[in-house]
């Protein structure tokens, strides 16, 4: 019997559930390794070689190299883990969040200062933007 996943119709949102977590285990654990300064240094010195030490899929590695966070999330990444890549790159959490929205850094920051993304039109897939 299928599991109950009522969150699949929330627009622009991927819920990090047990299935995503299973898919993203090695991707997220790679991110976790960046908590250590020596690993950050090794990753920066040769990203591809460092990624090849992890049993991640080629798609996951490409998504990390491209810093495509939406793709990373689709492939099982979780934002709190992916944030370690951002920290390694010297990016703030706001810069990372903004990078997933198609907005410029400035547009996203301005949106937050004026009260954030409104809920109207953002509850269900297919609603008017």
């Amino acid at each position, binding site marked *: 019997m299928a599991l109950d996943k009522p969150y699949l119709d*929330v627009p622009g949102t991927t819920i990090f559930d047990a299935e995503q977590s299973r898919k993203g285990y090695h991707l997220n654990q790679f*991110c976790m390794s960046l908590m250590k300064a020596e690993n950050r240094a090794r990753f920066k010195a040769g990203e591809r070689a460092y990624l090849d030490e992890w049993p991640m899929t080629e798609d996951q590695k490409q998504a990390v190299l491209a810093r495509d966070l*939406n793709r990373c999330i689709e492939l099982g990444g979780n934002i709190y883990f992916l944030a*370690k890549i951002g920290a390694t790159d010297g990016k*703030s959490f706001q810069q990372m969040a903004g990078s997933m929205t198609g907005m410029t850094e400035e547009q996203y920051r301005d949106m*937050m200062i004026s009260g*954030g993304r409104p809920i109207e039109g953002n509850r269900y897939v297919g609603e008017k933007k």
Partner: protein
Amino acid sequence: MAKITASVYTSHVPAIGAAIDLRKTAEPYWQPLFKGYEPAKAWMKAHRPDVIFLVYNDHATAFSLDIIPTFAIGCAAEFKPADEGWGPRPVPVVKGHPELAAHIAQSVIQDDFDLTIVNKMDVDHGLTVPLNLMCGSPAAWPCPVIPFAVNVVQYPVPSGRRCYQLGKAIRKAVASYDEPLNVHIWGTGGMSHQLQGPRAGLINKEFDNAFLDQLIADPEALSRKPHIDYVREAGSEGIELVMWLIARGAMNDTPPRVLHRFYHVPASNTAVGNLILENTQ
């Protein structure tokens, strides 16, 4: 006997910690937020508890995907501020209260809540930012703290109902502790925010304020709110609000006194809420 006299609710946004650490609290962006916490800090100074039971979540810091406990109680004598990728925050080491923590663990597990016991753990911004917001930046935290980590990172997270009932079990556990300790329980995280995907930046002021109203007046009904309502209305990370129900469940059944209420948008990507409730008996 020990007693829970008050509960505190607050967001725990990492950028707030960074603003404190980098001395940016007086900047125009941050000033309204820190000003809003002034009454809470004054209350905290005047009502120093013997122990804080602090409900928070770990953000891929102490717990990777190797082990994901739903409810974890910190029973150690101390907890170091974690290195979250930028070096540890320059805040005091958190002193625990192993005796009370062990007592609560024993009592709550006997009440059917299967806690994970943690005897070694670093604590991240989820725990230290609330301490800063409520206590400022002292050389040592004002009292021992029992960290209580809830999984709100990997779904399914515990339901609001489960959290609320757990709070009641914690209330009972504290009340059966022989030493006459004054205990505060804090629920942290939230309010509305989403940090991922094209919908990142979502804020829902109406939801947040209705949540605060109901948390004060009718937590029983609020505890029945399903996960999907949090996700859809308050953003994928807004689900952290279930942790507030643990603190609320630990309060007496009689209506509490509302001592402080504050709401502010934004702190980085997040709506910030702060509430202090005191037991009336």
